[in-house]
């Protein structure tokens, strides 16, 4: 399975990966909404040292987002309800993307919309932008044209968005999936058929915290997105299921990654690269720390290239699955 016999020096591990056809120097990225557009984190480390910087989801117009309180800490996790506050695509193109390009960072630009048309406009506006490596399409947004149903929760709506985006751009596209669905494989299949070059997974889980004193929801937005180590088992499972069903589709894995060994779980489950999100709030240096820890972990385990571990958790598994009386999807 690995080659422990030939120990590898950490500096000799080949960390380069290809994600959706694009080469990155290493597999550790930031997560959308957890790194703004890279500028603040650049105070703590050089953002060009990462595989890529995934920027906060940007919309067509400037947005003020939700009222506060916008966050609540939860056991090994947190809820957020930011409401996609941001400057809008024009300001982003003027101020943020050029800055990332200047740093020689690879930008994965996350776009969000309230309608298929808005996503298409965003993709069009991003055409030919310097420094743009990949598009990440955040489809965990309410569709204003369908009574606010979240695109990511409906295979048809999700595919519509991806198809419209693909029509506007030649940049490879990652569709970002929500775990809040009955069958994530069917959504994944739909967006891949619609042209997605890869998948980002997972977005947050919908959650709520009630204040024991006011007996009212803590968040002004009532519900919020649950992230952090608490959700990591759900994320690893989702990556594992989708990689099992669509082994050739590249995955950017995320959800509760806090250490190099956490990242290793995602790679073994089938992700080609990972995003470090909430962990940044507790440790601004987390992305580079995760990268170093991952490199060391690969070396210790005798891997000469990070690409050798991608999907490894599936190798002897297939036999076991079919031997098992209950399907693996059964929760008890």
């Amino acid at each position: 399975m690995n080659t422990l016999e030939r120990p590898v020096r950490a500096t000799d591990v080949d960390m380069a990966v290809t994600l959706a056809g694009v080469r990155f120097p290493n597999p550790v990225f930031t997560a959308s909404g957890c790194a703004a557009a890279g500028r603040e984190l650049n105070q703590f480390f050089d953002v060009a040292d990462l595989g890529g910087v995934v920027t906060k989801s940007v919309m067509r117009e400037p947005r003020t987002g939700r009222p506060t309180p916008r966050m609540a800490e939860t056991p090994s996790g947190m809820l957020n309800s930011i409401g996609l506050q941001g400057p809008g695509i024009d300001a982003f193109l003027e101020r943020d993307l050029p800055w990332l390009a200047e740093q020689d960072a690879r930008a994965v630009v996350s776009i969000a919309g309230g309608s298929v048309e808005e996503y298409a406009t965003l993709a069009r506006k991003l055409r030919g932008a310097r420094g743009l490596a990949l598009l990440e399409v955040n489809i965990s947004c309410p569709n204003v044209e369908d009574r606010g149903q979240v695109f990511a929760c409906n295979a048809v709506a999700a595919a519509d968005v991806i198809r419209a985006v693909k029509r506007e751009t030649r940049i490879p596209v990652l569709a970002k999936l929500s775990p809040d669905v009955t069958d994530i494989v069917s959504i994944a299949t739909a967006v891949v058929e619609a042209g997605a070059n890869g998948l980002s997974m997972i977005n947050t889980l919908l959650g709520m915290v009630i204040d024991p004193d006011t007996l009212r929801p803590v968040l002004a937005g009532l519900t919020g997105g649950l992230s952090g180590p608490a959700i990591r088992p759900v994320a690893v499972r989702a990556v594992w299921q989708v990689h099992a069903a669509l082994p050739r589709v590249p995955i950017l894995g995320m959800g509760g990654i806090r250490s190099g060994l956490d990242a290793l779980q995602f790679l073994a489950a089938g992700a080609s690269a990972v995003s470090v999100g909430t962990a940044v709030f507790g440790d601004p240096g987390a992305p580079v720390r995760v990268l170093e820890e991952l490199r060391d972990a690969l070396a210790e385990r005798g891997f000469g290239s990070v690409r050798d571990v991608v999907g490894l958790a599936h190798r002897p598994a297939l036999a076991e699955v079919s031997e098992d009386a209950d399907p693996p999807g059964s929760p008890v």
Partner: protein
Amino acid sequence: MPTQVRNASVLQIEKLGSYHRLRVVAPAIAGAVRPGHFVAFAVGGAEGGLLLRRAFSIYAVGGGGSGGSSTIDVIFSVAGAGTRWLSERRPGDRLDVVGPLGRPFPLPVEPARCVLVGGGYGAAPLFLLAAALRKRDCRVDMVLGAATEDRLFGALDAKRVSDTAAITTDDGSAGLRGRVTDAMDPFLERADVVYACGPMPMLAAVSKRALAHDIPVHVAVEEAMACGIGVCMTCVLPVRGKDGVAHMVRSCVEGPVFPGDAVLFDDIGTIPAGAV
């Protein structure tokens, strides 16, 4: 520019009434501190269930041999699991601390008459501020208040660092019975600028009173923060910009110090109409 010090050692930790004073060694941070800056500590240990840092105003810096400072002091009360954990640290323990964070209090260019108003542990950052102001030959009047005597911080030291100090408690258990706003009026008569730190309603009241006297006021706000470094957008509050329009601005990087007349206190917890 903030720095992360992963292994700041605890030099001292002691109880001061209902507060704790914590001193850590972090020269890379201490050397850059200005009054109004804050720091953020990781709490609960690497495998703990608490993910987010806890923010504290910097109360003091010191200990550096040749001019520079090497230690940071913060004052905190136990509010929940994170501060409880912090209160259980012992000298020699290591802490992960990020700082200095935020924008400090703006200092007057010319000697000025300054009124510093603190509520509860909101008094903490006023001591560095008082020292900096007096170095610039400013007059410093201090008004410190709290609900009860045991929630007062720095009442004894206030006299030492200021020209006049007034103390208030809601229940009269120490100093004057009443609010800081009641006690600050006499000082306002002769003030050029007001600085305040404390709970949001207090900041709103102090700002209102200062502005009624046409005196500029700088308030240090406290909003729940997930990251403290400007990347998460949880800590926003509505602030009127130079353009006259309300913006949802990040209190961790664009604050915590704001002009009191710009903060839309009544709209906190909402998105004011017309905000962009």
